[in-house]
C-alpha cells in the first residue's frame, strides 16, 4: 500500500522526520508558526496511521504491508518493516498520544520552543519505528534513537531535579539496551539473519542453555523499559521531572515497548526459555502489581502517584503475557492500549492543574469539583477507567488477564486481584483529596475550568474509554490471530480455539495449560 507513491510504513516512520526538518527551517522567533506546524504534522501523522486500517486485513496473523530492502549487506541487515494487529494498535496509540501530547504543549512550553517540537517529532519517529521494525538491528536502532529526545525533553523542560532524572533515565535504559544488543548478536550467529519472520519460520534452534542466556539479555532490555520491579527506580524520577507531554508519552508509549518486546520477540524466539522463566517473571509481575499499588497509596505528589500506579498496571500486563493463555495475552495487549489511554489522560489531567498552579502536591488542592465541573468529570472518567470499572476500557483488559491467570494458577489471580482493590483505594483517595471537600486554599479560588483546546485533547481519549469498555470487539479482532500465532509457538498445549471472552474456567476443552504442563 502506498500513499503518494511512498510505501505507507516508510511514510509513517519518516513523516515526523520530514516535519522535523520543516520545523528546523522556521526561524526560532516565530513560535506560533512552529507550534502550528508541529501540531499539523502530528495530526497528519495520526491520519496517516488511521489510513493503515483501510487496507489492513484484521483476520490475518501475518505481517502486512511488508517492506524489504538491503541496508548493510555485509552483515545481512535489512530495512524490513511490517505490522500485524498488535503493532497496528500500538502504532495507532502512539500517533494519537503523540498528537495529543503535542496539542497539550501549546501553552505549557514557553522556552526553547523550536527545540522542543524538534525533539517531540524525533521521539514520535523513533516510537513508531520501534513498533514497525521486523529486522532486529533496525528495531534496535529505533529503540535507541528514541532515548535521545526523551533525555532532552526531561532535561530541558523538566522540573527541579531534571538533570538527575534525565541522565538516570538514559543510563538505565541504555544499559538494558546494550545487553540486549549483545543478545541480538548472539542470535544472529545462530540464525545468520536479523529478519524476525525468517527466524520464526526456522523455529527455535537454540539449545535451552543458550536460549536462556539470550532470553535474559532481552529480558534486561525489556524489563527495564516496562519497568518491572526491581528495575523500576528510574520511572518515578523520570515521570515526576518530565514535562506533561513527556510523561504522557513515557507512560503511554515508552513503557509499552517493553511489554511489546516480550510479546513480539521473547515469547516466539525463545519459547522454551520463556516457559522456563515463568516463575521468575510471574513473581516479578506480582511483586510489581502489589508493590506499585502500595507505594502509590503513600504518595504526596500526584504525578508520582500515577507513576507508581503504572508500575502496578504494567505488572498486570506482564502477568497476562506470561500466563501464555490466549485470553490473558490478548487481555494484556488490550491492557497496553488501555493503560496508554487512561494513564496518558491522567498525566494530562495533572498537567492541567500544574499549568495553572505550578504545584502537584495533593495537599495543595481540595474541593476543586465545585470550581471545575468539567475537569472533575474528565478526571472521574479516567479514574474509573484506571481502576477498571465495568463498562469502561480498563475492566475488559484486567478481566481477561485475571481470567487467564485464574485458569493457570488461582493464586496468581488472587494476588493480582488485590492490586485492583488497592488500585481503587489509591485512585479514589486521590480523587477525593483533590476534588471533594471544601475549597479552602485561596490560591485555588480563581482556577479556570478546561479550555476548549484542553477539552479537545481529552475528547478522543474519553471516546476510546467508553468504546473499548462497551464494544471491545473490533480491537480484540485485530489482535486475535497474531496473539494466537504467538501462543501456538510458546504454548502449543493450548488449543487456539479459545477466543474472545471465551469459555469459562469449567470448560475443559480449551483449558490453558497448567504450570506443570507448561514445563
Amino acid at each position, binding site marked *: 500500500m502506498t500513499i503518494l507513491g511512498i510505501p505507507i510504513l516508510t511514510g509513517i516512520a519518516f513523516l515526523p522526520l520530514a516535519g522535523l526538518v520543516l520545523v528546523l527551517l522556521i526561524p526560532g522567533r516565530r513560535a506560533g508558526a512552529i507550534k502550528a506546524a508541529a501540531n499539523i504534522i502530528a495530526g497528519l501523522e495520526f491520519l496517516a496511521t488511521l489510513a493503515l486500517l483501510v487496507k489492513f486485513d484484521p483476520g490475518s496473523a501475518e505481517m502486512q504491508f511488508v517492506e524489504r530492502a538491503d541496508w548493510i549487506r555485509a552483515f545481512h541487515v535489512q530495512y524490513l518493516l511490517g505490522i500485524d494487529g498488535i503493532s497496528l494498535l500500538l502504532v495507532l496509540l502512539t500517533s494519537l498520544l503523540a498528537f495529543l501530547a503535542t496539542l497539550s504543549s501549546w501553552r505549557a512550553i514557553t522556552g526553547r520552543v523550536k*527545540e522542543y517540537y524538534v525533539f517531540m517529532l524525533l521521539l514520535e519517529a523513533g516510537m513508531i519505528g520501534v513498533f514497525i521494525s521486523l529486522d532486529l*538491528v533496525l528495531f*534496535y536502532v529505533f529503540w535507541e534513537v528514541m532515548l535521545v529526545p526523551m533525555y*532532552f525533553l526531561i532535561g530541558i523542560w523538566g522540573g527541579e531535579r531534571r538533570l538527575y532524572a534525565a541522565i538516570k533515565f538514559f*543510563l538505565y535504559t541504555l544499559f538494558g539496551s546494550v*545487553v540486549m544488543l549483545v543478545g541480538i*548478536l548472539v542470535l544472529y550467529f545462530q540464525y545468520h539473519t536479523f529478519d524476525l519472520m525468517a527466524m520464526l519460520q526456522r523455529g527455535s534452534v537454540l539449545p535451552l542453555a543458550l536460549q536462556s542466556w539470550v532470553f535474559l539479555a532481552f529480558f534486561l532490555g525489556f524489563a527495564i523499559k516496562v519497568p518491572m520491579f526491581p528495575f523500576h527506580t528510574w520511572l518515578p524520577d523520570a515521570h515526576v521531572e518530565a514535562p506533561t507531554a513527556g510523561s504522557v508519552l513515557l507512560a503511554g508509549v515508552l513503557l509499552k515497548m517493553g511489554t511489546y518486546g516480550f510479546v513480539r520477540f521473547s515469547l516466539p524466539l525463545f519459547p522454551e526459555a520463556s516457559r522456563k522463566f515463568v516463575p521468575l517473571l510471574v513473581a516479578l509481575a506480582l511483586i510489581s502489581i502489589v508493590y506499585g499499588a502500595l507505594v502509590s497509596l503513600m504518595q504526596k505528589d500526584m504525578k508520582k502517584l500515577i507513576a507508581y500506579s503504572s508500575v502496578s498496571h504494567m505488572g498486570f500486563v506482564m502477568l497476562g503475557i506470561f500466563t501464555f493463555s490466549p485470553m490473558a495475552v490478548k487481555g494484556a495487549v488490550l491492557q497496553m492500549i488501555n493503560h496508554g489511554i487512561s494513564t496518558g489522560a491522567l498525566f494530562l489531567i495533572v498537567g492541567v492543574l500544574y499549568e495553572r498552579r505550578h504545584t502537584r502536591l495533593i495537599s495543595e488542592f481540595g474541593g476543586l469539583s465545585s470550581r471545575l465541573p468539567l475537569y472533575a468529570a474528565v478526571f472521574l472518567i479516567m479514574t474509573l477507567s484506571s481502576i477498571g470499572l465495568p463498562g469502561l476500557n480498563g475492566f475488559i483488559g484486567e478481566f481477561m488477564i485475571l481470567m487467564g491467570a485464574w485458569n493457570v494458577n488461582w493464586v496468581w489471580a488472587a494476588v493480582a486481584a488485590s492490586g485492583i482493590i488497592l488500585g481503587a483505594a489509591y485512585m479514589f483517595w486521590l480523587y477525593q483529596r483533590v476534588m471533594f471537600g471544601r475549597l479552602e486554599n485561596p490560591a485555588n479560588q480563581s482556577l479556570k475550568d478546561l479550555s476548549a483546546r484542553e477539552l479537545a485533547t481529552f475528547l478522543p481519549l474519553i471516546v476510546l474509554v467508553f468504546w473499548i469498555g462497551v464494544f471491545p470487539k473490533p480491537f480484540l479482532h485485530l489482535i486475535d490471530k497474531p496473539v494466537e500465532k504467538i501462543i501456538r509457538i510458546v504454548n502449543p498445549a493450548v488449543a487456539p480455539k479459545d477466543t474472545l471472552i471465551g469459555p469459562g474456567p469449567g470448560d475443559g476443552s480449551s483449558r490453558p495449560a497448567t504450570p506443570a504442563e507448561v514445563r
Partner: protein
Amino acid sequence: MDQASVVSGLRSFVPELSLLGTSAVSLLIHLFFRKRGRRWAGLVSLAGFLAAAALLVLGPRSTGEIFSGSLSADGFALFFKLSFLLAGVLAVLLSFRFFDVEGSEPGEVYVLMPLAIAGMMAAVASVDLVSTYVAFELFAIPSYILAGIFKKDPRSGEAGIKYFFLGTLSSGIMLLGMALIFGLTGETGYAAISGSLAAGSRIALAGMILVFAGLFFKAAMVPFHMWAPDVYEGAPTPLVVFLSTAPKAAVFAIMVRLIAVVFNRYEVEWRLIFQVIAVLTMFWGNIAALLQKSVKRLMAYSSIAQAGYIAIGLAAWGEPARQAILFYVFVYVIMNAAAFGMILFIRKGDTFGESIDDFRGLARKSPLAAASLLVVLLSLTGIPPTAGFMGKYFLFAAAVEKGMVLLAAAGAVNSVISLFYYFRIGRAIFFEDAQAGPPLDRSLGPLLVVAAAALALLVLGIFPSLLGQPAALSGLGR
C-alpha cells in the same frame, strides 16, 4: 635488491614520495618567508595531503610486495593511509585558527606532519621487521617534536619530553622483541618468519610479548598508557587531533599484520593478550574519564577508551573483524578530530576554554555547534544513528562471531559508562544557562570542521555501506 625491483617499487611509492616532497617544500617556505610563510607552509602541506590522497586513490594498484618484499601496497594499507591523510587534513585545518588566536605559529608543524604521515604510510605497508622498525621511528620522532613544539605553553614542553623518553623506551622494548624473533628464525620478512617460527617456543612468545608491549605503548593501551593523558593535555589541541589518532591507527595496522601473518602459530596467546588489553583499556579509560573536569583531559581518556574498542577487533581477528577494524579506525579519526576540535569553540582571552563549565549554554549561543557536538557525543558513546554505533556494532559482532560474548558485553557496558561523562558535556551544552559561560570564538573554521565531521558521522551511521563496502574490499595482500 636489484635495480629493476627498486624502480618498479618506486612506482607504488609515489604518494609517500610526494609527502616527502611536500615536507621539503614546506620547510623551504617556512625558512625563507618568515612570518607570512608559516601559513603558506600550512597550505602547502594541506595541498600535499590532498594530492597524496588523490595519488593513492587514482594511482596504479599493486597488490604485490615492493622493494624486495619489505613493503606491501595492498588494499589494507591503502585504507589506513587514507585515514592518516584525513587526520592530517583535519589537524591542519584546525591549526590555522588555533595558532591565530594563540598568537604564535610554529611553522615546523607543517614540515613534520607530512614527514610523520610518510612514515606511517610506510609502516602500515611494512611486511618486514627492519622496514617496520625504521618506518615506526620515522613517524615516532616527528610526533615527539609535534607534542613539544608549542613553546608558549609550558605544558607542551613537558608533554614533548615525556612522550620522547617513554616513546624511545618503548621503541627499545619493541626492538628487543624483534631481535629475539630474528635470533630464533634468522629471517626478517613476515612470511618467512611465519614459515620458520615453531609453535610453543618460549623465546618466541617472549619476543611477541615484547614487540606488542612496545606497540601497546605507542597506542596508549592500558597499562602502557600513562603518558597519554599528559601528552594529549599538554600538546597544542589541533596537533592532539593528529597525535591521538594517526600514530595509534598505524600501530593497529602493524599489530594486525603481526597477528595475521607472523604469529599465526601463537593465536591462542595473542587472542588472550588482546582480550585482556581491550578490557583493561576500555574500563580504565572510561572510568578515569569520569573524574575529569577539563574537556581536553576527558577527551584524552576517551580516546584511550575508544582505542580499547578497536582492540576488541584485534582479539577477534578474522574476516568480520578486519572490516570492523577498518571501519572503526576511520570513524575513530573523524570522532576524535571533532572531539578535540570542539575545544576551539570557546574563546577565553587569547586562549581557548577547556573546562566543561566553559561550554555551558552553548546550545543558546550556537545551535549549529551544539547540534554537531550532540552527534559527535552520540557517536562517541555508540548510540544510533551514528557511525560510532555502527563501528561498535561491527566490532561487537566480530567478537560474538568468535565466541567472545563476554568481551562484547564488556564493550557494551563500557558504552554505558562512557555515556555518563560524554553527557556531562552534553548537559553543560544543552541544559545549563547561556549567560554563565565565556563567549564563543567568532571564527567559523573549527565550527565547520566539527559540523562536517558530525555530518559524516551521521551519514556513515545511516549508510554504513558507504564505508563498509570499501572496507570489505581492502584485504591484506600476500
